[in-house]
């Protein structure tokens, strides 16, 4: 009575999520504007990072990089020559999988990994895997591998609350629309291969050409660096006590499990209205905190101190990490680099007139993250 997917009915693959996964997901999802999308992005990122560590523990020579571009809403893992999108769902009791059109279309990837995120219990269940070539075949529906469709008319049961407000995609065999009335896609769970281990087999034994991606899109899409393009942060707003989402007050960071190695002596106390902010920086999976302290100076000027700290219990910054102040035009104004055992690094305090723009760049090896500011 054995079928290879039987095993997954009894013992689904559980991925334990780490505090760090939540932190990274939170920081990056802060860049998404609408709260509705933000929560889903947050869950998708948790899934992405959970998947990343799952793969890292199981592939013999893992070369895994998360590729994240918040402006284009592109999030995927680069595993060797393959790309993987993580689809996060809260539950699958209706056996349908909701996927946003951005996730599907912005940057097609070789694989779609379906993870059920149990946010509260800090676990993800790896529910299944869908290859892009199979997905496209299902979507088109004309292909021999995908002559499958949903019947709409049968077995219509009233909702327990007496309302049937939700409409599933209208369907007739062979001519299927998988797009829902609210723009997203809704796929049957049965499209997904219930055995997540096949992802390991594909990554190890296939060449990327074995899985056809939609034509014309992957080639033209420029390689996405792990760059977070943030909206410009207006520092004057802090003086009015408005902090942009994504930046936390100093107390938040000190209390938190992020264990920010913070001591008052490191922040110039003379800055009266100093606000601490955290920029989680995704560089080779190392998270750091960027601290910006501002104070009002004479003649409509602001004084600024920029520092970079390790978090998550790390005592030292990664050696060679570089903190750079750039002008609006991108010219390097000053820079500081971490040595072997630096608890933090900082730029020389500077002043500027209101409205002046600058950027801070954090770089480690070939990875760079830039954050834009306006005084």
């Amino acid at each position: 009575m054995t079928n290879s997917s039987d095993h997954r009915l009894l013992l689904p693959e559980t991925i334990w999520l780490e505090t760090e996964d939540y932190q990274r997901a939170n920081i990056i999802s802060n860049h998404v504007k609408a709260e509705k999308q933000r929560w889903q992005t947050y869950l998708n990122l948790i899934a992405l990072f959970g998947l990343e560590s799952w793969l890292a523990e199981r592939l013999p020579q893992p070369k895994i990089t998360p590729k994240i571009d918040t402006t284009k809403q592109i999030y995927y893992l680069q595993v060797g020559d393959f790309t993987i999108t993580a689809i996060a769902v809260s539950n699958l009791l209706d056996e349908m999988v909701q996927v946003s059109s951005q996730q599907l279309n912005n940057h097609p990837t070789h694989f779609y990994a379906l993870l059920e995120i149990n946010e509260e219990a800090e676990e993800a269940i790896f529910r299944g895997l869908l290859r892009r070539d199979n997905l496209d075949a299902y979507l088109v529906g004309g292909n021999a591998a995908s002559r499958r469709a949903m019947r709409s008319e049968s077995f219509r049961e009233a909702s327990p609350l007496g309302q049937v407000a939700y409409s599933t995609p209208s369907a007739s065999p062979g001519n299927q629309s998988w797009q829902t009335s609210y723009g997203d896609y809704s796929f049957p769970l049965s499209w997904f291969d219930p055995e997540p281990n096949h992802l390991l087999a594909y990554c190890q034994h296939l060449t990327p050409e074995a899985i056809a991606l939609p034509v014309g899109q992957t080639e033209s899409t420029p390689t996405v660096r792990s760059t977070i393009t943030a909206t410009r942060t207006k520092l004057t707003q802090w003086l009015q006590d408005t902090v942009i989402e994504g930046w936390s007050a100093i107390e938040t960071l000190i209390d938190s499990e992020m264990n920010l190695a913070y001591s008052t002596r490191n922040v110039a106390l003379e800055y009266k209205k100093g606000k601490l902010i955290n920029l989680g920086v995704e560089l080779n999976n190392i998270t750091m905190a960027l601290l910006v302290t501002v104070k009002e100076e004479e003649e409509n000027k602001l004084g600024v101190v920029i520092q970079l700290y390790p978090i998550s219990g790390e005592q030292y910054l990664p050696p060679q990490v570089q903190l750079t102040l750039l002008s609006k035009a991108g010219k390097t104004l000053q820079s500081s680099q971490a040595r072997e055992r630096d608890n933090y690094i900082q730029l020389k305090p500077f002043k500027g007139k209101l409205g002046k723009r600058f950027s801070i760049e954090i770089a480690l090896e070939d990875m760079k993250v830039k954050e834009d500011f306006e005084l």
Partner: protein
Amino acid sequence: MNGLSKYWQICRLSLANNQGYEFKEITAAQEFSQNLSSTEAINTLLPSFNSNSSVAGLCLRCYISYPILKSCQKLAALFSSNDNFNYRDLLPFVLNDDGQQEIILAEDGKTQLIIDRDGNTQAAQYRLFTVEIVASYKSDNSSMSLDNWAFLQTKQHPELKKFLAEFGFQHLSDWAMLNSTGVKQIAQLTTSDRQLIEVFHAVYRRDRRQQKVKRMGKCPNPTQEQLQEMQTLLRERNCIFPSAKSVFAALKKVASLLRQYDIWSYREPLEIYEPDSGNYAFRNDLPTENSNNALASEEQELLNFIQDSLNKALVTAIKQTISTRIAKLNKSTKYRPFAAKFVTGLELYYCQKKSLGEIAPLLGFSNWSQARRVLNPGDILNTVRTQTVQRLLTIILQKTQNLGLTDTSPSANDLQSLSIQIEAFADEAVFQAATAEIKSGKHRDLQSLYAQKIRLYCQQSSS
């Protein structure tokens, strides 16, 4: 189950084994099904049963019992993020047919009649679920297969739904429940409840993400501040709540509503339709075919080779999995103290047959869920299975390439079907029994090959 055996083997409850069910051969059904053609069986049996052939009914009841079992397993798997129940808890609701009674339907097409030894009929004391499914299935104008009908009927079983409402979401707080509500569930609520959830999402989800940075764990009650913000946002939408407290009460009410299984499961049925044949194919996520003989006979040589490799791969995989786990624990700030106790934990579980709950205090875990995170036997088993299968796959690919049987880079579909075959083989030989025994609740009898190898590992590493 191959060929016609599904028409004469009934899946019924059993307390005698780890799985909680067994397949019982029904002699009368076996004799009757000799004359069936495997492609036309259902179409032959249904009309016979409807014209009072109780033995045709027996064949159908056997046939139906397997999808019922699968539905329970599938349902439990969909709820698997909690350990409050497993599929064996669901079986008694729906597997109430042991195949011992001869039953026909009364003229109303519903009432079940028992035929006694003298050939007299009397109304049955309780209704068999298998017979109910067959009786309600309309083959002529149905748009779905009998299998899928059985699956859906099982999902809709009132007692089973009640059970799921009670235990299915027990592990989730009201706030996590509200948090995980999606467009689809919201659409089933009243307008005012919808407003309430949307406003809750706007406030609570935003803060939840930030909160998680500070403190992991359960979703706390919304604060007074959050409730007031929701109250304000609701007012902007013309929903007036007199106080923050009343918002709280209303949210609690919606949360309890959301604990109904129906809200989450609601959707139209899925059936895979083959336009060419005009038939409905089996769903590939509800396996109905046995794959014991997945490897065809011409691959017998390969099979022998895999058999030889399996044992070696299993032992290596166990070693590798355990050492990777220990290394990972050593790296963790939170779980480092348990690295040295990991093998002891395995020993307590597999040699002394203690449960995780018993092991937790012995090894100094602060609670059961911490022990579960470090020492979950299911996780360890899954990882060993993964490593074993990957190892076998690599060996076999090399071998077939050396023999010139396959190209150096296989196609994705070939690789997938080879993986499935190897998994089926490894599950049959090792992991199926290993899974059943750890899933069997209190009286675990850890006799599988896997358990033996784990014990061997423990002995070797402690000597």
